[in-house]
């Protein structure tokens, strides 16, 4: 088999295995709940039968591994279970399916993340490469100082500073990003401007520094020196000698930061009251609505793992040493 294919397959298998273990961890978290949580969910006045029915619905009368396969099986069919909230002690069940809660919010979060990525990735790569090429100059120093400051700030500080200047003192953008299903596209973009700008600032700082480090590392290698000494033009050195080897680190940097976006989105959504998965998860944690928390955690973790997997595959596929085996 071609060495690339086998390496890629190996990585994919490892990724699937990780995903499996992560789902086991997320599933088994419910095992650590104190024994009387059914009463906590249903209220103190819940009757014996309602509690028993609820326990049966959760499958607590069955061994853990049976419940895991039930859960993962339902998950594969797109059923994430039922929320804990909306249940009453009298047995009236007004709870909603987790899918209905998560679905529309996932769309919103993806919209915000995509919008940020479209702005942030090209910007960060350009700045990073420029800083690496002109390292040691004033441009490089200024960019370094600015990004170091942004990295050290908590996301919510960046967000509130932006709100202070762009929404409160100079009302240009709305400080609340409340969007609904029928908000038109450009209106959506306008309302997402501040959350997206916050995420962009945070991510560009990380991504730009990592790109700069990767490129500088690369430009120090002997074969680049060799190409320069051969008398090639700087442009040719970069495009035909440096870039083929740079794809792997760049793909890693981008994936790492998009994965970072997954986490950053939680705080930013709360600041701007944006109806996304992050906000939903925080609300669910406060009310201890475990099925919703599990679903959100699984979505975030899966995104994180898949992004890292894609980066790995890209760095394998573009690796010149694997592409042209001896």
């Amino acid at each position, binding site marked *: 088999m071609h060495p690339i294919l086998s390496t890629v397959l190996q990585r994919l298998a490892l990724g699937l295995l990780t995903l499996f273990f992560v789902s086991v961890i997320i599933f088994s978290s419910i095992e650590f709940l104190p024994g009387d949580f059914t009463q906590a969910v249903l209220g103190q006045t819940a009757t014996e039968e309602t509690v028993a029915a609820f326990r049966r619905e959760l499958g607590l009368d069955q061994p853990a591994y049976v419940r895991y396969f039930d859960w993962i099986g339902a998950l594969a069919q797109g059923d994430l279970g039922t929320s804990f909230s909306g249940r009453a002690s009298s047995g009236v069940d007004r709870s909603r399916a987790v899918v209905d809660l998560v679905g529309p919010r996932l769309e919103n979060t993806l919209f915000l993340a995509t919008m940020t990525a479209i702005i942030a990735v090209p910007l960060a790569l350009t700045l990073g490469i420029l800083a690496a090429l002109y390292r040691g100059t004033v441009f490089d120093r200024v960019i370094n100082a600015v990004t170091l400051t942004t990295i050290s*700030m908590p996301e919510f500080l960046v967000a*509130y500073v932006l709100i202070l200047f762009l929404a*409160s003192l100079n009302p240009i953008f709305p*400080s609340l990003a409340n969007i609904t299903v029928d908000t038109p596209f450009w209106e959506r973009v306008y309302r997402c401007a501040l959350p997206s700008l916050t995420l962009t600032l945070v991510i560009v700082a990380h991504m730009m520094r990592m790109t700069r480090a990767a490129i500088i590392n690369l430009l120090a290698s002997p074969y680049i020196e060799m190409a320069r000494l051969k008398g090639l033009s700087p442009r040719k050195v970069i495009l035909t000698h440096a870039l083929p080897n740079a794809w792997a680190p760049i793909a890693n940097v981008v994936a790492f930061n998009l994965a970072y976006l997954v986490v950053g989105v939680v705080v930013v959504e709360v600041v701007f009251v944006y109806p996304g998965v992050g906000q939903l998860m925080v609300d669910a*944690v406060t009310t201890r609505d475990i099925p919703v*928390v599990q679903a959100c955690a699984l979505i975030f973790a899966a995104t994180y793992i898949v992004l890292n997997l894609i980066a790995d595959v890209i760095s394998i596929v573009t690796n010149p040493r694997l592409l042209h085996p001896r």
Partner: protein
Amino acid sequence: MTDTPETYTAKDEVGQVRARRTRWERTWIELKKAPLTAWFGMIVIACYVFVAVFAGWLAPYAEADSSFGAYLPWGDGHVFGTDQIGRDIFSRMIFGARNTMGIAFATTCLAFLIGGGFALMAAISRGWVDQVISRFVDVLMAIPSLIFALMLLSIFGSSIPSLIMIIAVLDSTRVFRLTRAVAMNVVVMEYVEAARLRGEGLGWIMRREILPNIMPPLVAEFGLRFSFVFLTIAALSFLGVGIQPPTADWGSMVRDNASLIQFAQYDLKAGITPLLPAAAIALLTVAVNFVVDWFLMKTSGLKE
């Protein structure tokens, strides 16, 4: 003209009492060479620690004293005004330094104890012990730590002990990775082999043979971990699932006073009140990063 007598003898020189520089003198010489940013960082950290330790004496009012009017303006007995239920913001910021930093420090220590301990165990035993622990850590690291922390908090509840435990365990994975990597270079040394052959136990090899030789990267990592833990706790408190009221804490103070930002047009001071605790967090993180940068450059000779 008389010859000056030959005063030098080898015997005298050997007989001289050699004054070795004390540890403090050596430290001071290093400190004098430290760049401005490192000094800035150290002074800021010293101020924060001072405020944290003497919070009880420095704060004009008690931590949860809500006997004043809500949203009082700056000045007039309250340096930064009061919050939504009439607590003095300046006092709460001082107590917040103690609480947030104390919790972050305890968490980081615990993370190092757990992560470092397992890492040394893995590095010394190698074989299947190393494989099992390392693969387990790989899986834990596959989940973003803020998301993992949120999930665990929903199960164990948001009390300070569970907050410390959860974040310490999640962060110990990063400590494990680094400690294992640097310890792996040391365990193959002859003196470790010698210690093993003369029958020293696991504990001795960990403490006396390996730990002293991997200290510099660990100290630097401690600084970075501390600022990371600090930011995580602040973020969790900001989300309302970290440190719970009435305990003063910078993250939740930002959340509580966030609505004041909308009034910045009418009263700029009120508008920036919620930014003060957030700025305090950022300043400490910057300070720690400066010091760690300098320390890393010192110990590893890295210039980039």
